[in-house]
């Protein structure tokens, strides 16, 4: 997705030349879409952290419930 956003941003850059009002409006809309996609990409940081936390949390629960815990299994809740 990062590559795609970068390519789209480059494409906008190349199109930044004087044009008709319609063309300028189209560029503005594309920039707005890019900004929204960048924000969405930023939100993925949070989603990854949340998923990681829930996995570690559940892993600790599984380890605690397990009769013979694996010697290498860890997790910050252990």
């Amino acid at each position, binding site marked *: 997705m990062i590559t795609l956003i970068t390519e789209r941003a480059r494409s906008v850059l190349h199109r930044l030349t004087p044009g008709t009002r319609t063309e300028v409006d189209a560029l503005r809309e594309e920039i707005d879409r890019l900004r929204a996609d960048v*924000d969405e990409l930023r*939100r993925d*940081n*949070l989603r990854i952290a*949340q998923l*990681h936390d*829930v996995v570690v949390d559940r892993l600790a629960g599984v380890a605690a419930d397990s009769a013979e815990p694996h010697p290498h299994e860890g997790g910050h809740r252990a």
Partner: protein
Amino acid sequence: MRASRLRVDEGGFTALVGRVLPGEQLELVVDGATVWTFHAEPHRRTRGLPFSLVSMTWPAGLAERLNGRARFAVRRPRGRVLAGVEATVGSSTAPIDLRDDEGRPLVVNKWGELTARFDSADPRLGAAILQLAARLVEVLEADGQKVMITSGTLLGYVRAESLLPFDDDADLAVVVDSSESPADVAGLAYRLKHTLRTAGFDVILHSAAHLQVRVHDLDDGPRAYCDIFLGFFRGDVYCQPFHLRDVVPRTSLTPTIPVAVDGVVLPAPPVPSDWLRACYGPGWMTPDPGFVFRTPEATRARYENWFGTFDFGREYWETVAESSEAHTARSAAAHADAVLRLASELDARHVLDAGCGDGRVTGMMLGAHDTWAIDFAEPAVEHARTHLSGRAQVTRLNLADGRDLLDAQIFAASATSVISTHMVLHVLTGDTRRHMYALMRDALRHGGGVVATFATDHTEERFAFRDPATWHLPVDVLADELAESGLRIAALIDEAARVPGHERATATVSIALIDTTGERR
């Protein structure tokens, strides 16, 4: 002074005063007490003239309490009154009361909310706050974190080796210098939440970079708060949500040095002025009770998306829950009946009541299934635990936080579940409502069901963003939002009109999936 020079109404005030410079600090005095310190923005057309026209909109917290009669005045800090008037605002003619439940005078803080003036607070509060901060530092350092005092606590130390006279909490920062990734910082916030809870602290997340620790009823005394912010570097730029994003030398922050704040030893950055300048600007040394953060959009967009905002309206809902009276909404019976019927039809093992409030409606939905009641307002959870007395599991869970949402989703997907949400959907912000829809989808995909009751119209008061009691969700708007989330209204179970002064207009619906093949089921 001529009274006619100050006009006040429900929206704000307009004052015609002697010359005031743009940004000059002024105070609003209500019945002799300074309530709000602000920076004046004189009308452009009066700039350069020997008089100024100053118009200000009430901060949200103050606007909510201005209903009645009082003497208003605008003055320079502790100086001469520039304009004043005796006036009535709103529908009441009773004296305006700007004190909290304990009779302490309230002032507008930097968030535009009303808070008890620190110098009027319980004298034990300052000591309690600093003791809490010291205990937190101990736990965090034992966990291997680099901790320092920050924000108002750092400012107070630098100015007077004391808490600021108008501050009501302590501020700590955990400085992460091992990673530039916001995902790692957010991950650390969740880990620290567990660490601090394990150590016995009451922790909430305002975002995945801002924790708040609260100590309730300190020896029957005041509540003490401590904010913990996570800061990290991206290149040379130090980022400390929610506001700071500027170049700060790493050596100005760590290693920390021990300092004494009101006699309590806490870690401080070795060059505090670098942090303070980056956060508050070059004038940081001059006391400014009217200071407000003006966070650049580029910074706000980064922090809100990297770390979320989880606690919109929490204080409002905690206040509502604290004052909860034995009132069960008219819609409760129809809602509970629909949930029980659906749970029976589906042979559901779980009922999850999302936004249980005081638990009275949850109590009407108990049955052969396991019931899990969740709410993000602590007083609501306490009421629900008392009311349900072990007949249902009650947990403080915040669906605005995607981490808590995952716990609810796992529960809903682990067995046939019915999601119940009574008088909640209409008071959620857009992001949190989408989280709720994700939870519904998970329940439905695993053979479960959904019953939702919500207010469909505003109250007698017109809709006002600052007043969640007026928020509402028309059925057609819900239908549109559901469609975007792959959901649809399956049946309109109950609908009730507004009864002025008593009941809101409500609808109870069941919700189903829109099949991806286009078939409806």
